[in-house]
């Protein structure tokens, strides 16, 4: 059993500043006992991945509203791979206004979960907890 507090970074990548969804999820996860870092708006992929590495996070959450989720998620995954932040260890979730057709696309890239508008925050919390547990278990069995 992993007793360590789950550490999450929630990021707004790109130029969009609609941050209430990201702030709300940050607050809910913090209320659920996780350690949450919210980056604030207008982050770049390199700044996020760097922060994720330095903070040694368990979960990366990306929040989008204006339609740039495909590009930014692809770039995030590429850089995570380059920097050795593997999806076998770190949970990657995406939330916001994501058209249904893009949900399966994002999942095919390796995104663990996509949370669209109206998702119950308890679902977000439990999904993240389960994904972290699964990856931790797999990782420790490999080690």
């Amino acid at each position: 059993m992993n007793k360590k507090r789950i550490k999450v970074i929630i990021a707004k990548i790109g130029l969009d500043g609609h941050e209430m969804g990201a702030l709300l999820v940050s607050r809910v996860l913090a209320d659920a006992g996780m350690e949450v870092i919210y980056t604030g708006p207008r982050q770049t992929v390199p700044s996020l991945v760097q922060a994720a590495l330095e903070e040694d996070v368990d979960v990366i959450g990306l929040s989008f509203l204006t339609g740039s989720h495909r590009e930014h998620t692809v770039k995030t995954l590429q850089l995570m791979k380059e920097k050795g932040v593997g999806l076998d260890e770190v949970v990657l979730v995406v939330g916001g206004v994501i058209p249904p057709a893009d949900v399966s696309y994002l999942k095919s890239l390796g995104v663990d979960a996509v949370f669209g508008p109206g998702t119950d925050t308890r679902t977000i919390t439990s999904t993240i907890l389960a994904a972290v547990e699964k990856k931790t278990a797999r990782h420790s069995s490999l080690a």
Partner: protein
Amino acid sequence: MNRRPAVVADTTSIDEAMKRWEETVRAPSLAVRPETRDEFKTLSGQTVKPLYTPLDLDGIDYLRDIGFPGQFPFTRGRTPNGYRSFKWPHDFYSGYGSGESANQRYRELVKHGATVITLALDLPTQIGLDSTDPLAEGEVGKAGVALASLADAERVLDGVDLARTGLGFVANGIGPYALAIALAVAEKRGLDPADLRHFRIQNDPLKEYTGRNTHIFPVPMAVEMATDVVEYINRNFKDKWLWQWVPQYVCSTQMRWGGMNAAQEVGFMLAHFFNYVDSALARGLPIASVVSKMEWHASTDLDLFEEVAKYRAGRRLFARLMKERYQCDDPEVLGLRVSTWTTGDHLTAQQPLNNLARISMSVLAAFLGGAEHIWAPAYDEALALPTSESTRIANQVKYVIHHECGLENTVDPLAGSYYVEKLTCAIEEEAIGWLNEIDRRGGVAAAVDQGFYQREALRGMHRYQMELETGQRKKVGINLFPAGDELPLNLFQVDPQDEQRQIQRVIELKAKRDGRLVQQRLNELAETAARKVADKRVNTVPAMLAAVRAYATVGEIHAVLRQAFGTFKPPVSL
């Protein structure tokens, strides 16, 4: 003449009768049919009583507090005859992709009778970045169309006759640039800029620090840049078509959608409005010509009565405070024009066609509140950028309600409703508190830096979400009849090639324009900006216009300004 006795509020007898009613009628009924919830609240969280009566009007003086439409305190409306003497501007907010695809949609809209086209700009343009900027990657042409230079604007507006079709911009961080673009396009066409049929620019930077985050400069400089636009239009086009132009309007939309309540919307709108007025007055502009063109751009949420009360409270409080703070008696100043973008946040991605009911209800609320311009969102907006069809429907809802539901017949029909009048007073009172809170914190800029707006929005949003999740509040498709399988909608997608095309065009433009002239104009702009740092009243529009005419890009122009003014560092307060 055989007159029936007037209904007079004899409060003592009503009070007694009501107590009897409570005991002998309501209580027995409740024993059989208990209430379905512990507490009934407005969407903003105000507790609502089961019944309102003339007792709730205690302290309200009809002539002082309600009055007549078109007259102080304007509770019942800015104009005396309401929708009986009213025609809607046929206005669309649209823009996406490369210049060509946006242009195609604008031409379609004009063909279908649009009298005003409001350009949605992409985020890089709104933040003063070129389409070629690495930070812009993935955002070019997404939330709007890219206007990286005058060349883009010429292509985007090609075939749109600006002497016949009005032009609107949602440009808050880049107001002077947007104005310069509009003026330069007009010049290119051989039009006197003053002959533009209509020019309307949001030019409300404070909105960007209090909800939307599309900001560039530190708050005080952003306000001064916005005032440059107001001043330039006032000084240069006086006595021409100025009456048709809107150089600035104050938005509370994003704050509300971000989680603020109805009273906060009113209180913060007033704080921002007064901030702009003070800035314009410091330039020596007459209050009448500034304020009579401005308006309150509000949200209209789904709680019908609360929204109507909010509009009425906003107008009354504005009139009272303008009179008090600026010693002004001019009805053109005191009567607040209200426009609305109804609701952006309470549409659901689940069962999206249900949103048509939500949109209709908020449009109805805007009517009953006396809005003079109503934009409604498209029913598919919680899923993706709207399609051409969903945009058309969004626009036509107001015509259905106007012409088919009896809304045009009489002015302010909910006036005198015990509930609505009481709620109007409650919102007015709470809004004064929020306005004072901003003053107490040292003004809008200080409140932004303290993270105050962000915390308040998060508090409201969290409250609402928890109400949903505990079942205190029901929402169809979310916690009532939650969605099963969805019907596939035909969703809009931006052509992925558009971004590359736009980037290519900016590269080509930079290669073929007169580079020395551009540099010279940018140097002059830098000098102007340096002078503005020393004296905030220096107007940046002339230098901006010269740079735009030379095909300097939005990124080049704002790089110069960032250098001079610095940039805003957003607070993060969880």
